């Protein structure tokens, strides 16, 4: 009997159902969009390596009377290596955007001058060849390791190993390795757009007025991250001749800090998207209430008949609640299919891991049904409260 509600007025039912379906679909798509974005952001920061501390120069002090910030220099690295007990690998790097050419091919990319441990510290793997060694760094050997993007742009399908590139139009450099592709970041920036060269080579060829871009460090044991952080802080305060009261001209950050901030941001984003979607669900619910109010008005006479032959108010109420629940369930089901498909497509287009879980699809679906029941309540109550005699008179 309840299913008659769908067939008796198919056009109207379809429109009502569509309203809720769109609400549920939007909810699912928005939540999975937000979650996908969040996971993408997180995985991006996780790719930095979870157990890495990074020392960054603080751009400039706001206070004019403060000492001029000291760039990160070799002395810092030497002090860290000599004094620290909690830090294992310590790798500085310098960074500049340069032109790179091979034959007629010419690109602009990020050149990092660093040490051989850099790729391992970041868990980067090699497509071809490997990294330069300590002796290459000491000798300032003109070698480089290409990220996947420069390799593809400069060499296409050719083998880049052993080829010689020209850096900044002047300095020839031999390719000893090619990194495996890491794809794109959430922001769309190319994680493969990088070229590594020995630190000393970089300094000899290009210099480094601003010092190191950062010093990256791994504690000897994962549990020592915080100990290592405070140790690094103390050592650097000393090398930078700063007292504990002065504002430091550097930061020691862990990816945890960044991840936490990014996580919070994307949580807010997800919440916001879900909020917008919830509004559209609400509109769908109001659609159901509207159509059920019309149904009660149209069927007043029938309700009177049912009451006269002995239907209890609770039974009449149940009938209309069942009808709105059926409408909402059909809408929610359609919305779950639509929303699930949309989320899949978005995930595929954006290259995110699919974030459709049972919870993200069934949750909004159940919520959609609940909306139908809640908004069906008022019309159902109105039907149950009709006076049978008055209702019978209405034809």
């Amino acid at each position, binding site marked *: 009997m309840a299913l008659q509600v769908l067939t008796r007025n198919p056009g109207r039912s379809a429109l009502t159902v569509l309203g809720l379906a769109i609400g549920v679909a939007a909810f699912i798509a928005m939540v999975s969009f937000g979650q996908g974005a969040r996971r993408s952001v997180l995985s991006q920061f996780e790719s930095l390596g979870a157990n890495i501390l990074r020392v960054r120069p603080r751009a400039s002090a706001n206070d004019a009377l403060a000492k001029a910030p000291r760039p990160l220099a070799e002395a810092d690295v030497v002090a860290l290596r000599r004094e620290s007990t909690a830090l294992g690998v310590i790798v500085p790097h310098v960074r500049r955007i340069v032109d790179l050419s091979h034959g007629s091919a010419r690109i602009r990319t990020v050149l990092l001058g660093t040490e051989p441990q850099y790729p391992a510290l970041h868990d980067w793997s090699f497509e071809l060849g490997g990294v330069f060694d300590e002796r290459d760094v000491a000798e300032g050997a003109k070698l480089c390791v290409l990220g996947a993007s420069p390799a593809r742009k400069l060499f296409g399908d050719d083998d880049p190993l052993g080829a010689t590139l020209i850096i900044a139009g002047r300095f020839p450099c031999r390719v000893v390795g090619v990194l495996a592709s890491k794809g794109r970041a959430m922001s769309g920036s190319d994680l493969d757009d990088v070229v590594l060269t020995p630190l000393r080579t970089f300094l000899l060829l290009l210099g480094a007025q601003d010092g190191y871009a950062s010093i990256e460090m791994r504690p000897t044991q994962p549990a020592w991250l915080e100990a290592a952080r405070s140790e690094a802080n103390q050592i650097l305060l000393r090398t930078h001749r700063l007292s504990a009261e002065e504002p430091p001209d550097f930061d020691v950050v862990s990816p945890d800090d960044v991840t936490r901030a990014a996580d919070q941001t994307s949580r807010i984003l997800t919440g916001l998207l879900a909020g917008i979607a919830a509004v559209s669900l609400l509109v769908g619910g109001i659609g159901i209430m509207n159509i059920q109010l019309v149904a009660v008005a149209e069927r007043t006479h029938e309700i009177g008949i*049912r009451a006269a032959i002995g239907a209890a*108010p609770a*039974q009449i109420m149940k009938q209309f609640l069942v009808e709105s629940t059926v409408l909402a369930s059909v809408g929610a089901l359609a919305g779950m299919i639509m929303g699930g498909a949309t989320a899949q497509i978005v995930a595929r287009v954006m290259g995110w891991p699919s974030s459709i879980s049972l919870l993200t699809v069934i949750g909004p679906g159940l919520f959609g049904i609940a909306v139908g029941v809640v908004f069906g309540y008022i019309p159902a109550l109105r039907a149950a409260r009709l006076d049978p005699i008055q209702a019978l008179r209405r034809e």
Partner: protein
Amino acid sequence: MAQVIVSTGAAPTTSGVQPSRSMIEVREVRKDYLDGSMHVPVLRGVDFNVAAGEAVALLGPSGCGKSTLLNILGCLDRPSSGIYRLAGQDVSHLSREQEAWVRLHHIGFVFQSFHLIGHATALENVALPLYYAGVPRKQREALAAAILQRVGLAGRLHHRPNQLSGGQRQRTAIARACVTKPKLLLADEPTGALDTQSGREVLALISELREETGMTLVIVTHDASVASIAERRLEMSDGQIVAEHGSAGVQHA
């Protein structure tokens, strides 16, 4: 107040309502309607009894209050004051849920304009009270089909009301009223919308069913020939019973 109780020997049997020789006891029942700030009296103190198994006709001009009285007897309406006992139980102060229960289990209604559900078949219409009584589908369809056969509509089970003649519709409505085996059948101008021949057949059917089941009948009409199927006739005027004719003689209220 005069009371006339005609015993026919048929006793109410259903549990939940105390057995009584009187099916209906109406005491000093008044009904006012609020029209703006004015209380308009429709029933001005009605007293009468109907014995179990008896058939009583309520006669009177339109507006005399007989339909209001019938609604009160059918637990569709409540008296403003006074007492209505159905099979010995006071039903004038029940909750809406309780009223519905009494209607469902003890009372059958037949209306002038049939009041069938238009989009449902004859079978579905007749089975509907059983649905509300919680009878399983197969059983209620069997019971509905059986009583439709009894009223002569065996071939019309799956017809909708608009595919039936007026007489057939009223037979369907009678089947629906009787399918729960009520103690009390209330009929409000049951022949009012029918031609003479169909009306006569419907009245004959009601009489037969009453004899078969021993149910009590109250029939509202303004037509003396319709009233003739009742053993007793109560004449109403201006919200009161003004005369009584029938097997127990004549009483004045």
